[in-house]
């Protein structure tokens, strides 16, 4: 692994970091291929598969019909029989079209077979709102996947993690969903060349703080960082944790932080009711009940489908403002 070496880093947008992650995997794993709608000739509708067809050819970069059940079944069958498929599900919203293949086949086959099957399959999919793509192209449904024994689910918040987690997911011998965020595609940062892993199941402390722990998922990490800047002025020194992995979830890092800060806020883009924030909140109060000086706060989307109009979508998506407002309200600042 190139972790040993010190690979050169350059500014790279999230979208190209995804591209490099897939590219590294296809280079290092001869049994790996990527299949999905318009990933080959078009290079994916997001552009993160550009150049893959040229470098790896049509046997390993495969355009599929519009058949999510078939595509996900391809991932199940091919991974159980010796390949390491990367399956591209264009929008996370389409998971309803293949949820049986995901939930009843992919996640359960190993267990049902008494451990005799191994499914090294990675599913890349795109979640999140922000572009007025309305109710069927903007959802964050990670809570559904995290509720599935046998499945791993990660949400890289930046370019570095996107590349590193795609590589880690594809090296993992379990089904892994890598939930990307479409509003982050153009976000740039320093990304090393070559191959490196960001381990699955490990949260990352983006900022250390003394009296509030903010646990954020995916793109919300950046809103949490912005909010923490403004909270400073209110005398709140927030520690910001990028959960990075939803399943498995890194409870230890979160609990350790809260034992120090005594206050917690969980923020995700998904609808609050039934969102992953409930699970995290429950775990926090189970493990750090006596350390909490205030109820664990949740900031998430309100209980409605994602609206089309920018005027409504703007107020729908959680952001730094709503985080700050929530903290002020709960801590009566």
């Amino acid at each position, binding site marked *: 692994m190139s972790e040993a070496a010190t690979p050169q880093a350059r500014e790279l947008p999230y979208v190209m970091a995804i591209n490099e992650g897939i590219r590294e995997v296809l280079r290092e794993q001869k049994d790996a291929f990527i299949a999905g*709608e*318009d990933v080959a*000739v*078009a*290079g994916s*509708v997001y*552009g993160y598969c550009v150049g893959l067809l040229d470098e790896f050819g*049509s*046997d390993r970069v*495969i*355009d*599929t*019909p*519009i*058949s*999510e*059940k*078939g595509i996900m079944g391809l991932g199940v069958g091919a991974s159980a029989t010796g390949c390491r498929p990367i399956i591209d599900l264009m929008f996370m*919203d*389409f998971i309803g*079209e293949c949820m049986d293949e995901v939930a009843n086949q992919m996640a359960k086959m190993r267990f049902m077979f008494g451990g005799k099957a191994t499914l090294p399959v990675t599913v890349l999919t795109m979640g999140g709102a922000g*572009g*007025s*793509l*309305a*109710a*069927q*192209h903007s959802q964050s449904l990670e809570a559904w996947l995290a509720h599935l024994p046998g499945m791993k689910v990660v949400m890289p918040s930046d370019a570095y993690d996107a590349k590193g987690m795609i590589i880690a997911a594809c090296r993992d011998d379990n089904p892994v969903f890598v939930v990307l965020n479409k509003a982050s595609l153009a976000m740039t940062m320093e990304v090393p060349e070559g191959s490196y892993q960001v381990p699955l199941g490990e949260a990352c402390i983006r900022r250390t703080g003394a009296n509030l722990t903010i646990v954020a998922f995916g793109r919300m990490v950046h809103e949490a960082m912005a909010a923490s800047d403004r909270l400073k002025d209110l005398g709140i020194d927030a520690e910001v944790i990028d959960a990075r992995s939803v399943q498995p979830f890194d409870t230890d890092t979160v609990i350790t932080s809260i034992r120090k800060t005594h206050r917690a806020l969980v923020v995700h883009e998904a609808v609050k009711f039934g969102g992953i924030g409930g699970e995290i909140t429950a775990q926090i109060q189970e493990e750090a009940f006596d350390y909490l000086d205030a109820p664990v706060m949740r900031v998430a989307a*309100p*209980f*409605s*489908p994602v*609206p*089309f*109009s*920018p*005027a*409504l979508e703007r*107020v*729908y998506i959680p952001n730094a403002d709503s985080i700050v407002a929530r903290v002020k309200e709960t801590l009566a600042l």
Partner: protein
Amino acid sequence: MVAKKKPPAKKKAASARKKTVARAGKAAAKAKKAPARAARGPSDKVLQELHLKMVRIRRFEESAGKMMEDGKIPGALHLYVGQEAVAAGVMQHLSNQDWITSTHRGHGHLVAKGGEFKPMFAELFGRATGYCKGKGGSMHISNMDLGMLGANGIVGGGPPIAMGAAFSNKFKKNKHVAVAFFGDGASNEGSVHEAANMAALYKLPCIFVCENNGYGEYTAQARHQVIIDVADRAAGYGMPGVICDGMDVMAVYEAAGEAIERARKGGGPTLLECKTYRYYDHVGVRGMGLNYRADEEVEAWKKKDAIQSYEKRLLQLGVMTRRKVNAVHAAVNRDVEEAIAFANESPYPEPETLLDNVYNEQGA
């Protein structure tokens, strides 16, 4: 990895094609010989309405494309330009009590079903005066009063819903039908398979109109299915499969008329495939700027432009004069301008309305 050679079964497919194409041929021929004038041919009024529908769709879409490029329309916009003959030819047979389900490329269907420009542009602009109060946008634009069960952001999302609407019609023993529009790409979705089988099983008044424009996004038909004619799948459900020239509004009008009449009479569903083409990119106008189809191909189809060829025919038949035709275009242009002005001046929905319409509060 795409199958190049035709597999054995191709023969059968071919024969099926001949049979069905023959029908469409007949229709087209009849249309060419003495359409308007023929005793049983459509009246001048119908011929003029077909023309108006197509012009309204074309102008609406061309303007929507511009508005998008001017930053007036957020989100994804899938233009129907090129396929006008299909929506016009089918919708000419439908009343507001007949249901349709549409696709992500749905403006044309709604315009042909009677959609007004003002609330349509307002919806695309995300304004409170839109058909969906700005909550749906292009991919969910709809109007229940017009019998339009919505554009749909999910490919293959419409057919099961149309089948359900057709079930309603049969349940209520009325003579109304439901039409499901879907693309060649959508034909590979399991939802279309299940809906078609159920419609045939229950003999529902449901017409499955496949607008085969040769591509699903950037993937050519030959790269998403082996068959050439989606209509070949009809036999697998025990329903008639018909193919017609989707650039010839008369051919669509006649083929759709037969299918819809059969459905109203209790004859069950039909799979009607219309060979057509979209002029602009999959999404937006220039889209991603990929060249996945040859310019020659695009030009060749444009030569068969549904509106121009139809206007020529109307002039030959003397159904309309050049002046009349120009007047139609001028009037539609005025409608478009007024509608865009209306949309521009319309207010955005109030933030307080966000949580409205999630549930029907009168419920229970």
